[in-house]
């Protein structure tokens, strides 16, 4: 009988100890003022535009080379904000066009007549994102005479330019020859041969890029010709 009592006491004591020790009965205040967790967000990158095509044909001769390219999209499937077309004349780069995403062509009216130029295209997004440059287009010769040649021709008054051939402009366009003939006769078109690289006014101010909705990709464009990832970075904050 006493043995049984002793065993019961021991068992009860042990159970009580377990209950108390495990904290079930002790309901002390518990709070965490702050705990920290993490998350991450990865930004996309603008894609590279495929090699653009540049051409000069009879129709576009007066306006300048025409450049066209294939549209690209962001990895999320959204449209980019627009495109920047850069003219390369030798080692000189200049902005030829800046167009919204809905437009995939550019007529470069500011190219230097007579010069050989190539074009690259970069995708744009927001006000600062500029994508990598596309491969350069095949070179094209801008219709018209280089200023130096024009002056020489005008001064000498040779019959070469008056012959009406298109040999010198390299475009295979007979119309250029006849214009050159006019130069020779009048000597009054020097001003048109002086190159102007004033950037084409941005069409974005009046025609925002596509990509509207909850996640628009477009925005107003950057104001300068940029050169890859470093542009605009210094002004991030």
């Amino acid at each position, binding site marked *: 009988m006493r043995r049984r009592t002793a065993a019961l006491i021991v068992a009860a004591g042990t159970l009580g100890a377990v209950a*108390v020790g495990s904290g079930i009965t002790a309901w002390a205040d518990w709070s965490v003022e702050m705990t920290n967790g993490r998350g991450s*967000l990865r930004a996309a990158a603008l894609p590279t535009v495929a090699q653009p095509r540049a051409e000069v044909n009879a129709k576009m001769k007066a306006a300048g080379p025409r450049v066209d390219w294939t549209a690209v999209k962001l990895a999320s499937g959204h449209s980019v904000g627009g495109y920047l077309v850069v003219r390369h004349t030798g080692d000189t780069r200049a902005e030829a066009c800046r167009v919204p995403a809905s437009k995939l062509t550019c007529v470069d009216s500011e190219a230097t007549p007579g010069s050989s130029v190539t074009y690259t295209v970069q995708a744009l997004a927001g006000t600062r*994102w500029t994508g990598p440059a596309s491969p350069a287009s095949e070179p094209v010769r801008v219709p018209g005479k280089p200023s130096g040649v024009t002056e020489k021709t005008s001064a000498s008054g040779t019959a070469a330019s008056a012959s009406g051939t298109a040999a010198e402009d390299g475009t295979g366009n007979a119309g250029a020859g006849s214009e050159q003939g006019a130069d020779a006769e009048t000597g009054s078109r020097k001003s048109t041969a002086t190159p102007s690289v004033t950037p084409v006014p941005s069409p974005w101010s009046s025609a925002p890029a596509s990509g509207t909705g909850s996640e*628009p990709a477009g925005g107003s464009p950057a104001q300068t010709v940029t050169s890859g990832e470093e542009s605009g970075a210094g002004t*991030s904050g």
Partner: protein
Amino acid sequence: MRINLPKLMTARRLVAAGTAVACVWVAAGSRTEASEVDLARLGAFSFEVTGSPMEKFHPGAVRRTRVTIANPYPFAIRVRQVDARVTGSSKWRCRPTAANLTIGGYLGSLPLTVPAYGRKTAGEFEVTMPHTVADACQRATFRLAFSAGAERAAR
């Protein structure tokens, strides 16, 4: 009346041993509780707060990150507060500023009770990449920090 002395001694020893074990256990348990409270005051207690990862952000993108809270304790906790902020990025020229990324207010309802050893979605935060985001932020990974305050839920 005859007393079986050896048996009585054994029983007493058993009782004494049991009581000693109980005392030690209780003492240990009490110490643990006290330590837990102290640690909580020091912020050593923690539970897991995570935000769902977001990818392919671009200028103008607006998305939401879902916050999940995991409770590693054997009792329910009541979450009183959840905050989020941008703490850094993988590119040093892409700073964690409002010009590059913004996080809106908490979208959810608090307090939120998370069951013992349980996991619960605790609302969302709206994240916006403004049009002004720096060019250097292309391909950058932004680090977000979530903070939360909680207390033990009443039984």
